[in-house]
C-alpha cells in the first residue's frame, strides 16, 4: 500500500514539474518575459533592472531552475495591478471558486442520482428514454448561455434573483444552476450505466433469493457497488470544474480565481495569471490523488490486496 502511494506521489511530482515547465515556457511566447511581468507603464531602465534581477539574460535552463526554485519557496511574483504578491491574492479567491464548483457538483448529484437509479431500474421503458433524452439535452446546452437565459428570466423579467456578484446566499443560485445542469446530464447517464452493470451481477440475484425487499436490494446491495466508480468520476469532475468556472464567473461576475485570471490576462497582469494556472493545476493533481486514495479506502478488495 505504501509503495503504491509513494508511486502516485512521484507521478504527481513529475506532472507538476512538467506543468511548471510549460507555464515557464508560456512566458516566452510573446518574446520578452520581462515585458510581461512588469506593468505596462514601466520605464526602460526599470525593465532592464528587472531583467538583470530576474536573470533573463541567462541561459534558458538556468532561468528555469531559478523559476522553479522561486515557485517552490512560494514566490509567485508580484501583481502590479494590486501591488501585492500574487500568491495570497489567488489563494484568497480560491475558496470562492470552490464554493461555486462544489455547489454545482452537489446540485448535479441531487438531480442525477435519483434519475440515474430510476432509469436503470426501469430500463428501456418510456421513463428511461425520456430521462436519458433530458440528460442529453442538459449536456448540450452551453453553461454560459444557460446563465444568460436564467438571468434574463429570473433577474430581468421576474426580478427574483440578482444578476451578479456575491453578496449573499441567493447570489449563488443562478451560477450554480448554470454550471450544474450540464453536469447533471452527464452524471445521470453515468449513474444509470453504473447501476445497470451492477444490477446484472450475480450477488444481486443472491440478495433477491434471500427474500430481501427490492428497495433494499437496490439501495443497499446495488448502490454501494455502483458508487465506487461513480465516486471516482465525480471526483475527477470536481478537478475539471475548477478550470471550467471561468466563463460562468465572467457572466455572473462571481469573484473567484477564474474571473481574476481573465481580468489579469486582459489587463496584462501576467504574474497573477501565471499563479492562477499553477495553483489550479496543483489543486487538480491533489484532487486526483485524493480520489485515488479514497477509492482504495472504499473498496475492500483493493485495500486487502495492498495490505
Amino acid at each position, binding site marked *: 500500500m505504501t509503495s503504491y502511494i509513494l508511486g502516485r506521489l512521484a507521478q504527481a511530482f513529475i506532472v507538476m514539474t512538467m506543468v511548471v515547465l510549460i507555464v515557464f515556457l508560456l512566458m516566452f511566447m510573446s518574446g520578452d518575459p520581462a515585458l510581461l511581468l512588469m506593468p505596462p507603464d514601466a520605464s526602460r531602465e526599470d525593465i532592464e533592472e528587472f531583467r538583470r534581477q530576474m536573470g533573463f539574460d541567462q541561459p534558458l535552463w538556468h532561468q528555469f531552475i531559478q523559476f522553479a526554485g522561486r515557485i517552490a519557496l512560494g514566490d509567485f511574483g508580484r501583481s502590479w495591478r494590486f501591488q501585492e504578491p500574487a500568491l495570497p491574492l489567488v489563494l484568497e479567491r480560491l475558496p470562492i471558486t470552490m464554493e461555486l464548483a462544489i455547489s454545482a457538483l452537489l446540485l448535479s448529484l441531487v438531480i442525477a442520482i435519483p434519475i440515474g437509479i430510476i432509469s436503470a431500474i426501469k430500463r428501456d421503458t418510456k421513463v428511461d428514454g425520456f430521462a436519458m433524452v433530458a440528460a442529453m439535452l442538459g449536456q448540450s446546452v452551453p453553461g454560459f448561455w444557460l446563465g444568460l437565459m436564467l438571468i434574463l428570466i429570473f433577474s430581468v423579467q421576474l426580478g427574483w434573483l440578482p444578476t451578479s456578484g456575491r453578496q449573499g446566499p441567493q447570489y449563488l443560485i443562478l451560477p450554480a444552476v448554470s454550471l450544474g445542469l450540464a453536469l447533471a446530464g452527464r452524471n445521470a447517464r453515468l449513474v444509470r450505466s453504473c447501476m445497470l452493470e451492477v444490477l446484472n451481477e450475480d*450477488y444481486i440475484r443472491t440478495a433477491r433469493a*434471500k427474500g430481501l*425487499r427490492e428497495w433494499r436490494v437496490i439501495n443497499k446491495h446495488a448502490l454501494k457497488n455502483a458508487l465506487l466508480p461513480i465516486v471516482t468520476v465525480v471526483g475527477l469532475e470536481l478537478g475539471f470544474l475548477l478550470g471550467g468556472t471561468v466563463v460562468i464567473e465572467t457572466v455572473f461576475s462571481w469573484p473567484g480565481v477564474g474571473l481574476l485570471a481573465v481580468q489579469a490576462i486582459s489587463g496584462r497582469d501576467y504574474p497573477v495569471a501565471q499563479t492562477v494556472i499553477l495553483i489550479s493545476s496543483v489543486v487538480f493533481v491533489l484532487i486526483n490523488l485524493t480520489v485515488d486514495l479514497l477509492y482504495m479506502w472504499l473498496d475492500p478488495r483493493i485495500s486487502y490486496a495492498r495490505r
Partner: protein
Amino acid sequence: MNMTDNITLEVEDLYTHIGVQGGEVRGVDGVSFVIRRGEVFGLAGESGSGKSMTAFSIMRLLPLRGRVVQGSVRFKGEDLVTASAERISALRGDRVAMIFQDPMTSLNPVFTIGDQIGESLRQHRGMNASEARVKTMQLLESVGIGDADRRFGSYPHEFSGGMRQRVMIAMALACSPDLLIADEPTTALDVTIEKQILALIEELRADIGAAILLITHNLALLAEHCDRIAVMYAGQIVETAATEELLSKPLHPYTKALLGSMPRSHISKGRLKPVTGLPPTITGERRGCAFAPRCPARMAHCDSVGPLILEPEPGHQVRCLLFGERP
C-alpha cells in the same frame, strides 16, 4: 389429504420462455415433478438443458427477458407463479432457499459475510444486530468455518472458493427453510472440496429436515446423494425414477447414453460420459422428439410425433416413443 401434506414442492406443466434477439427460446418446455418432505431430488442434464432455468422459475429469479408462460409451482400447496411479490419475498430466504454455482460472484464484495448472513435473520426473523450476530456465529460454526468471531467481519474475497460456498450454505439455511435448491453447488470447486460441501449439505439437511433439489450435470454426485433423479434434455424431463431404479434400469436412450451403458459399480466413480452432438435450443414449435437426431434407438416416427410422459413401472416415468404413444 395425507399425500398432499407430504409434498413440499409440486411443479406442474411448467413452461418458461426467454427472449433473445429475434424471438423466444423455450428454456423450460413442459416440466413436471414432485418433491416430498425431506426428500433429496436430483435434476440432471447437460448445460443448456434447462435445469437452472427451472430452478430460477421456481424461485421467480428469472433474468429480465425470462417469463413463466404456463404452469404452476406449488410450494406446500401455494402456487408461487401467481403469488404476489411481497409473498415471494417473504418465502424466499425463509421457507425456500437457493445456493448458486459460483460463490465468487454470488456474494456481494463490499459487505462483510457476517452482514450478509445476518440479513436474512434480520429480515425474516426480526432479529436485532446482536441477536443476529449470535445466530450467525452459530451458523458459521455449523458450516465448519472456524474462528467465527474474526470471520464475522471479513469480506468475501478473503475466503477461498470452498469457504465461500460454506458461507452461501450458512446464508441459505439461516432460517431453516423447508426447501433448499442447490444449483451446481460444487461445479466451481475442487473435487476434494466437493465431497466436503455435499457432506455438509447432507448433514445440515438431516438436522432441519429440509427437502433438497440438487441440480448438476454430475450423475455420480446424484447417484450418491439423491433419493430420486429426473433427467432433463432440451427443456423437458425425459425420465424420472428412484435413484436405484434409474441407475440399474434406465429406460430412456439419453439416460442410457449418460450412464454410458455401464454397470452401476462403475458409475459411482465416473463422471458424465459426454454424448455426441449438441442439445438443441428450442424456438418456435417443437416437432417430434428433441433427442431424435442423436438417438441410437431412433424410429421412423420419432421426428414427427412428440412423445408424452408414460409410466411403464410405478414410480418410473419416461418420455419416449419406445414405450408407446399414449399413457
